[in-house]
């Protein structure tokens, strides 16, 4: 007979408590709000799934979700290839390696709201370096407080500036782990540079790139601070991403019910997309 020792469960308790207090309990509060209506004074009325229905049918939510998907799509399609290209161009050994690595890491060390403020000032048409240069030296009208296109371009460039380094560093780590023999063998096999990239470098980078794309997807899909500081969601609603809209509903209009329902839908989308993405990326590994 095996000894049954139920006391071992006590070892799980610290983790359980930690997860409960930092995730489960706050989350349950949101669940609580999402199915009820409150007028304050701790008075609640059962609302069922009405808030979910309302959010899912609202045009406002559709638009914010559309903007969010567009933003995430744009930064992924730019940052991933650009990051790979920069990693390929970086030296693999020699005195320039630390210089390149530190330069690459610098943007990531800057806090989100500072990045937003920096780019805001940078692009001001009258005193910002870029804004002044565009408007007064080149004569191109560029003002993101007026022009939605300018606002979008700025937001995307800002994110590319801030986060391409993450892809670069991950891709670089994948690249330097490729043993030299692979390149030598490819040279002897007469492989072209493209074939080396396609059949050696890309497959060897696959794992780290999966992580890079996942991280960039989640971070960009949940992004709040930078666009909020930069454009505040404007001009109009043109750069109001999901998180910005959510805060407006929850804290601006104090519509706690719809905001809670929207939070849960938002969370479900992020989770589902990440799962789908990871499953697709690793699907080939299990095939023989």
């Amino acid at each position, binding site marked *: 007979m095996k000894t049954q020792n139920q006391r071992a469960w006590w070892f799980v308790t610290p983790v359980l408590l930690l997860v409960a207090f930092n995730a489960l309990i706050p989350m349950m509060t949101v669940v609580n709000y999402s199915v009820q209506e409150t007028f304050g004074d701790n008075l609640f009325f059962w609302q069922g799934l009405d808030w979910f229905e309302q959010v899912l049918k609202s045009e406002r939510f559709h638009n914010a979700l559309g903007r969010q998907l567009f933003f995430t799509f744009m930064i992924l399609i730019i940052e991933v290839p650009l990051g790979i290209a920069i990693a390929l161009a970086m030296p693999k050994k020699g005195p320039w390696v630390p210089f390149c690595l530190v330069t690459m890491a610098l943007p990531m060390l800057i806090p989100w709201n500072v990045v937003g403020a920096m780019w805001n000032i940078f692009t001001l048409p009258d005193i910002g370096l870029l804004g002044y240069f565009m408007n007064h030296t080149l004569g191109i009208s560029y003002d993101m407080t007026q022009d939605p296109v300018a606002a979008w371009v700025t937001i995307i460039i800002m994110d590319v500036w801030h986060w391409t380094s993450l892809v670069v560093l991950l891709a670089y780590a994948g690249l330097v782990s490729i*043993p030299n*023999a692979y390149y030598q063998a490819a040279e002897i096999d007469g492989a072209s540079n493209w074939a080396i990239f396609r*059949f050696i470098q890309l497959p060897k980078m696959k794992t780290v790139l999966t992580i890079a794309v996942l991280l960039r997807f989640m971070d960009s899909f949940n992004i709040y601070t930078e666009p909020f500081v930069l454009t505040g969601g404007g001009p109009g609603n043109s750069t109001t991403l999901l998180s910005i809209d959510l805060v407006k509903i929850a804290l601006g209009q104090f519509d706690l019910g719809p905001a809670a329902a929207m939070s849960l839908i938002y969370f479900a989308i992020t989770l589902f997309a990440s799962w789908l993405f990871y499953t697709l990326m690793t699907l080939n590994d299990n095939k023989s």
Partner: protein
Amino acid sequence: MAQIKLSNLRHSYQPNPQSDADYALKKIDLTWEDGGAYALLGPSGCGKSTLLNIISGLLVPSEGKILFNDQDVTALPPAKRNIAQVFQFPVIYDTMTVYDNLAFPLRNRGRDEDIVKRRVTSIAEMLEVTDMLSTRAANLSPDNKQKISMGRGLVREDVNVVMFDEPLTVIDPHLKWKLRSKLKELHQRVKATMIYVTHDQTEALTFADQVVVMQDGEVVQIGTPVELFERPAHTFVGHFIGSPGMNVLPCDVRDGAAFFGGEQIRLEGPVGGVGNGAAEIGIRPEFVSVSTNGSGIAAQVRKVADIGRHKVVEAIAHDNRVHAILEGEAPSAGDAVTLEFKQSQTRLYKDGWLASTPGEGAQ
């Protein structure tokens, strides 16, 4: 296929080599005959991989020339030299199937799919991997991966030389000998020149017709396995080949006769040109006999190791350690014994190099 000639080859990894010590390869002159099976044997860091990379074109030598069939290829890149190299760790293209892996070098050179198919099929058959052709190469075991690496080298019909850089390092011991005999068989079938780099004497001696022994960037001896075993040209070869290696004992040379601890040792033959003074006697443990009641050099047994087929006796004679390999009965540790050296296998080395010549009338 080609005869490969290295002439006046020197290589240094430093930009401005000053002394001999700065050279990883010190002046190599060597000819690899067409169709030969060679082994390049030496301890780690002796320059054998450097030499291999120079032949394949991955490295350009600091000085000297490489000739393939008397044509200078020193400046040609690897792809132009038509050589193949198999590395220590199997290099395979993970995302491709085994078939595509084998076809890769041919497709890169723009061969027709008909030819590709014919070559790949015949190589796969030779390597016994036909049933794996459609599996993804990433899912193979290390020994099969290494087979595929070899296959990519052999698939080209006109390869000048196939080089193996310690190819069995990551292979399980029980599969090593299988792959080794496979290699030998392949050599007989494709008749390409093959150079096999290793620091393992068993691998070198079983694979090669000719073994090139290197030390400190120099070629010490070239010969058949038997020659290397019986007449090492340098005490290093004596040490390096054999288990345990050759006994090298200090001696005094006086008027052409060698004295070990004051006792004269009869050598295989005359020693030409060795003046009086210190030298070394070389004798393989296989040719040392031990007796408890005979004549010879007095010694005391320090330990006896039973390694299965035979016993290795370690004895101390005149403060020097002497190994002897005995079949059957052996003395035990602490016994006083006498050692006798087989005269025809007792050689004299001066400054490390062989100085005695076989012959009658030895002293």
